[in-house]
């Protein structure tokens, strides 16, 4: 039955959430208006609190309604029909929740509700002005999923739209209550555990940028230019951690699931998150500078505000459809661009106007920074980050320039750089150099009194060590027959310096107080990530070079990389130091560990069920007996690829995945499989398979008349006809009593193993039916054509087809583990820094207590002469 109740309840909740956010924004504004910070109009405050609470309840109710629709497979709703399907496991239903734009907006709204509640609870003094801004942002976000038409203008896109209202197809004219039996399903690439956790992390990061922004704006509004820094700093740290980890989760997902050959593709969708994160980290350094040295306050204001505006800009980029041809995986255009531009414009104008209005009143430090001030180098480091962000912003916005010029009537045909990797790398690499160098330098200077001799002293050891280790690495690289150009050498050396200088400081700080070393640990993590990127991207080696010597085209033989190799089934091909062979297609069977050979499974009319042709076992444990019905996941085929080291004989198996998804018109979706070694990964994916949608091209049937015990040659293999027996795999035939079913028993000797082949011959009501049997491995099909009982002769038909093959690309990625372990270390460092500042909240809790204005300057460490 068509159920409109739950959708109406959801839609009503959206409207309530929107109205409550509006009321909360206005009431909080009124509560705080014309009052100094910490004092409020009690009655307006009460209304504001109540309204925001109601807003939160309504948001939770929207989420509950939408999830119920997905969970109960209510395909009368467009959202469920378009993002889910009957066979989707529950944990992926969570992912389909945010596959669509509306759901991801909802996720973002939800996180901001949670953060809003935390602020209401823990930052009472700042509550009214900060929450006014929070509720204002919520108002805009909920309007995106409002789905209301006012005066002919559509405001927002509701996730609760019915399929019949979305699709204009004839069936709804004849039967408006028609409900599809199944949904179109979740994009296969999103069916990955990282996609369950990556989007919530990223959107929590997005939501967290609002907190420091709201504090900064509240500070400007209330004329409190310094006190906002303390709470904002803590939240910025949390934001830096969450957003940074979220980005790297996305990178790891891309590495594991997509097949462009790496973890980062400079796609606008990736860039849109990377830019605000860089600026957020820069703003973090600005805030720290103010906390310690009473400098860079204006910079902090600018950077904190910019971070949030960049998050809004990212939303505009990825959701307005402006990217068009530029991105493969930006969201579809829901016709919200106008709303998004208003949203972006409103915040840009208001924030910048307020900042400009108050600019002169923001305190600045009079003292000139000298070369021996660590603050100068922190500042330079933050500037480097901003320049890096600026480059990505300028290039990623190219489609926006086109759209803008088109809007004012100028035709522009500007496109993104043809070689994006080269374009971004040439600047980002130097940003990495700057980050590694200045982080090391400033970290050492930060904790000591600096003059010429003390600085020289403390820099000598890490400096010399990094030069030595870099020289060693360069020698090793050359020893292995590779070259290193100058920029790589510079990045390597500064990366080493970043690790060692920060490490020397962390070791010193450990003796004093472990929690102080958070910054140092995070910096080591970043420097390790840079080294990991240098090694894995700069020295990734394609091992699947075509070595057959067969070149089909000789048009440009000298300049093309031939990076893919064709592997015939069960043939061996040399690849790098490995012999590689493709040994068959496998399926995922939920109850059996690993994958199961397709040849063991007899497919039935129900795609999700198969019959076992033989016992399916792992070791001694039998999971299915021959003839059992097996539950299978038919979407993905896993191609078994064996790697064997020619020298050592060590072998491993990879199962790169391919999914043929015709319904979505997406052809083959290929995902790699990765073998991880400590010092490198072997990454392989399928580039192509024989056209899957076509029937195999079988040769004409050749008849053989055989007696039991005869041997014949079939397509280069010989086979023994061992006898005829009652057919035992008859479950798929639907036999009834009185039917006769017999099968031939053949043993075929393939290259590597033997195959039992059982073509079946059925007699029912004097009608003859034949069920041929195939050996995929050998490209063979046998059918049981006739029986001559008097002579004891049997006729079999043999047809052959081209053997199965795959086209494979395999890449070796050295030291990619440095990138992942660096990420973990960075996260740990952020965590330590947050832990160190955990008391700040409690300070803010007591509004009467005068805030200690000058944070205690860290004690310089009395370094011994022979330190480290």
């Amino acid at each position, binding site marked *: 039955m068509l159920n409109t109740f739950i959708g109406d309840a959801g839609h009503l909740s959206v409207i309530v959430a929107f109205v409550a956010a509006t009321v909360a924004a206005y009431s909080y504004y009124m509560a705080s208006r014309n009052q100094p910070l910490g004092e409020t109009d009690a009655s307006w405050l009460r209304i504001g609190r109540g309204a925001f609470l109601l807003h939160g309840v309504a948001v939770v109710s929207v989420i509950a309604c939408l999830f119920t629709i997905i969970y109960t497979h209510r395909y009368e709703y467009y959202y469920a*029909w*378009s993002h889910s399907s009957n066979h989707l496991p529950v944990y992926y239903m969570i992912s389909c929740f945010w596959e669509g734009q509306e759901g991801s907006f909802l996720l973002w709204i939800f996180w901001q509700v949670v953060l809003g509640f935390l602020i209401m609870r823990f930052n009472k003094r700042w509550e009214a002005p900060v929450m006014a801004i929070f509720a204002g942002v919520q108002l805009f976000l909920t309007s995106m999923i409002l789905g209301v038409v006012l005066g002919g203008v559509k405001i927002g896109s509701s996730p609760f739209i019915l399929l019949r209202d979305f*699709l204009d*197809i004839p*069936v709804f004219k004849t*039967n408006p*209550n*028609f*409900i*599809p*039996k*199944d949904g*179109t399903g979740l994009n296969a690439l999103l069916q990955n555990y990282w996609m369950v956790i990556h989007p919530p992390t990223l959107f929590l990061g997005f939501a967290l940028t609002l907190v420091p922004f709201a504090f900064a704006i509240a500070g400007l509004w209330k004329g409190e230019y310094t006190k906002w820094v303390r709470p904002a700093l803590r939240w910025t740290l949390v934001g830096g951690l969450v957003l940074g980890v979220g980005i790297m989760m996305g990178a790891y997902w891309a590495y594991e699931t997509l097949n462009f050959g790496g973890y980062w593709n400079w796609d606008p969708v990736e860039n849109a998150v990377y830019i605000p994160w860089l600026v957020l980290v820069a703003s973090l350094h600005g805030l720290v500078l103010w906390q310690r040295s009473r400098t860079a306050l204006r910079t902090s204001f600018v950077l904190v505000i910019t971070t949030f505006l960049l998050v809004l800009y990212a939303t505009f980029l990825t959701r307005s459809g402006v990217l068009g*041809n530029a991105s*493969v995986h930006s969201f*579809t255009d829901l016709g919200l661009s106008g709303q998004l531009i208003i949203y972006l414009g409103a915040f840009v104008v208001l924030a910048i106007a307020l900042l400009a209005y108050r600019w002169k009143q923001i305190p600045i430090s009079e003292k*000139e*920074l*000298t070369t021996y001030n660590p603050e*100068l180098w922190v*500042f*330079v480091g933050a*500037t480097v980050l901003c*320049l890096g962000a600026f*480059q990505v912003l*300028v*290039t990623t916005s*190219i489609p926006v320039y086109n759209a803008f010029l088109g809007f004012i009537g100028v035709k522009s*045909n*500007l*496109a*993104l*750089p*043809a070689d994006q990797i080269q*374009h971004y790398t040439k*600047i980002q690499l130097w940003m990495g150099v700057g980050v590694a160098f200045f982080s090391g330098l400033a970290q050492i200077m930060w904790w000591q009194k600096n003059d010429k001799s003390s600085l020289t002293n403390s820099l000598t050891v890490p400096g010399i060590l990094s030069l030595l280790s870099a020289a060693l690495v360069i020698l090793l690289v050359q020893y292995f027959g590779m070259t290193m150009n100058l920029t790589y050498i510079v990045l390597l050396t500064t990366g080493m310096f970043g690790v060692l200088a920060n490490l020397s400081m962390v070791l010193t700080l450990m003796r004093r107080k472990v929690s102080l070393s958070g910054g140092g640990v995070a910096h080591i993590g970043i420097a390790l990530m840079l080294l990991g990127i240098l090694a894995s991207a700069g020295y990734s080696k394609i091992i699947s070079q*075509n070595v057959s010597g*067969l*070149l*089909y*085209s000789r*048009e440009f033989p000298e300049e*093309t990389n*031939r990076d*893919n190799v*064709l592997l015939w089934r069960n043939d061996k091909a040399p690849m790098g130091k490995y012999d590689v062979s493709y040994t068959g297609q496998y399926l995922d069977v939920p109850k059996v560990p690993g994958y199961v050979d397709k040849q063991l499974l007899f497919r039935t009319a129900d795609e999700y069920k198969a019959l076992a042709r033989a016992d399916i076992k792992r070791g001694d444990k039998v999971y299915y007996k021959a003839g059992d019905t097996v539950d299978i996941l038919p979407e993905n085929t896993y191609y078994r690829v064996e790697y064997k080291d020619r020298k050592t004989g060590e072998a491993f198996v990879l199962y790169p995945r391919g999914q*043929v998804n015709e*319904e*979505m*018109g*997406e*052809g*083959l979706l*290929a995902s790699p499989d990765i073998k991880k070694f400590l010092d490198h990964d072997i990454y392989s994916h399928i*580039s*192509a*398979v024989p056209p899957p949608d076509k029937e195999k091209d079988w040769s004409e049937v050749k008849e053989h008349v055989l007696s039991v015990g005869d041997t014949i040659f079939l397509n280069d293999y010989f086979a023994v006809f061992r006898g005829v027996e009652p057919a035992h795999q008859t479950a798929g035939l639907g036999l009834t009593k009185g039917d006769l079913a017999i099968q031939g028993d053949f043993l075929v000797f393939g290259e590597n193993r033997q195959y039992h082949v059982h073509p079946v011959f059925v007699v029912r009501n004097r009608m003859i039916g034949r069920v041929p049997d195939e050996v995929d491995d050998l490209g063979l099909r046998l059918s049981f054509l006739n029986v001559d009982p008097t002579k004891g002769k049997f006729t079999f038909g043999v047809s052959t087809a*081209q053997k199965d*093959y795959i*086209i494979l690309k395999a890449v070796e990625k050295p030291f990619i583990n440095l990138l992942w372990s660096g990420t973990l270390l960075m996260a740990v460092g952020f965590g330590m820094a947050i832990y160190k500042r955990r008391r700040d909240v409690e300070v803010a809790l007591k509004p009467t207590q005068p805030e200690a204005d000058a944070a205690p300057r860290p004690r310089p460490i009395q370094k011994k002469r022979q330190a480290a």
Partner: protein
Amino acid sequence: MKKAHILAITVIAMAIGIIMSAAGDASVYVSFREAQQRAAEGNLTKVHVVGRLPRDGRQNIMGLEYNPTLDPNYFAFTLVDTNRIAQRVVYFNPKPQDFDKSEQVVITGAMRNNVFVADKILLKCPSKYVEKDIKGATASVN
């Protein structure tokens, strides 16, 4: 001059450098005729071309050439740009599997000896959002 000024000037100079590099590296959308002109002038920078695949009466794409058993890294096809100019394109990679279903194709690369050598192919497939049919939609009331 104060240090702050030096820093500011350096930053501005770098920002200008970044904009120049973006302007220099930015590619353009062109037609095949313009791509040919560029090649004739010796300009080998890569360009973007947007086009469609020619189809015969039965919606089969004409002029596809891919024979993986001979060379898995050679794929050639004909693309018709927005000015209806057809051009032979080669792509030294396996044929993208969803190629046959794509409506619009964006390629990057440059002309060489009368063929366009593409190094990237971006396919715009009919999105599932415009799907006009539901499986089993002819079935009667549930």
